[in-house]
């Protein structure tokens, strides 16, 4: 892992090539993370993969989180791994919640990491985050005709009320 000064060094080097790309860093529980401008996410991921001395060539996971009620609301997380030094680095891109009816958008990184294809489809399936440039952005786990984004925090839990006395007293 890069330690906290190492993380700041990486940030400084990215700043030289892509000014303004890194918005923030965090080093929480020994886990380094870069918070990145979503418009420049591809530039940063390409730099981390290809720049000499970096070599974060393996995307071990791509996932999203809904931070409601915080703004920006959505976070897309890229877990990068350097397999030579066994170092992990987390890259976060925070996305604002657009107006009702629209979906948040970010560039697809399938061109950089082919493994992202299914993982971006899964993020789209559950959070409704659109990855621009993805070759086939359709639902992957839920039925094709499903309506809604069920892992968002404002999505109802679902199921049915159970007719126990407790439920009757509290919700009947």
């Amino acid at each position: 892992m890069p330690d906290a000064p190492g993380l700041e060094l990486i940030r400084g080097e990215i700043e030289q090539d892509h000014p303004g790309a890194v918005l923030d860093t965090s080093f929480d529980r020994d886990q380094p993370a870069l918070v990145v401008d979503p418009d420049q996410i591809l530039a940063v991921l390409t730099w981390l993969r290809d720049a000499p001395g970096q070599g974060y060539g393996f995307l071990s996971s791509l996932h999203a989180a809904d931070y409601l009620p915080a703004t920006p609301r959505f976070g897309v997380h890229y877990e990068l791994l350097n397999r030579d030094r066994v170092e992990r680095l987390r890259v976060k891109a925070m996305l604002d919640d657009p107006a009702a009816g629209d979906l948040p958008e970010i560039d697809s990184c399938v061109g950089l990491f082919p493994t992202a294809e299914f993982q971006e489809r899964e993020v789209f399936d559950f959070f409704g985050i659109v990855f621009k440039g993805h070759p086939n952005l359709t639902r992957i786990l839920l039925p094709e005709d499903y309506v809604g984004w069920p892992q968002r925090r404002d999505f109802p839990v679902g199921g049915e009320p159970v007719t126990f006395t407790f439920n009757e007293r509290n919700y009947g």
Partner: protein
Amino acid sequence: MLRGTLEGEELERYVEERVVMTRFDKMLGWARANSMFPLTFGLACCAIEAPISIVTARYDLARFGAEALRASPRQADMIILSGRVSIKMAPIVRRLYDQMLEPKWAISMGACSSSGGMFANYAVVQGADKFMPIDMHIPGCPPRPEAVLYGFTKLQRKIKGNPDQGWRQRYNAVGSEEWARGGVASKPNPAAAEAYETARELIHA
């Protein structure tokens, strides 16, 4: 006997000892119940208990005449729903059930396929009888293989035309039904509510 070696009283006794008279539908039900062809079909963790365990030598479904698990719904006449049914799986399960030839039976095994179980969420059907008819519910999470066998023998009695009565009838517990009144989702239908009130009045009279 047909060649006429026995006559008179001896012939009567011979027939009495060897011939059983019954109705044809009873005989048919007896034959069906003892020659079931379950579908090889597992949905989730309950599949370890039902289609896998109960055909092993330890539990041995062959004792009840159902050891031949068929891999095609066209050859099967019983399906055991062993696990939670997701909304994506439900149309496929329904299609399998529709492809089975009549007469056919369905067992809902475990809490998940009977009621959704612990999965009260966006992805799981809250009870398999929302999309197909179920003949037998086996409770448990998961039910032990013995429970599955017990449920299976109960289904056999149902096929033979002599279904077990529920515990309310056995313990004469009419009128003890409880449901949460007032909630939107838990409203009993008017006929059931009327029968309930009538039974209460009869008990307290």
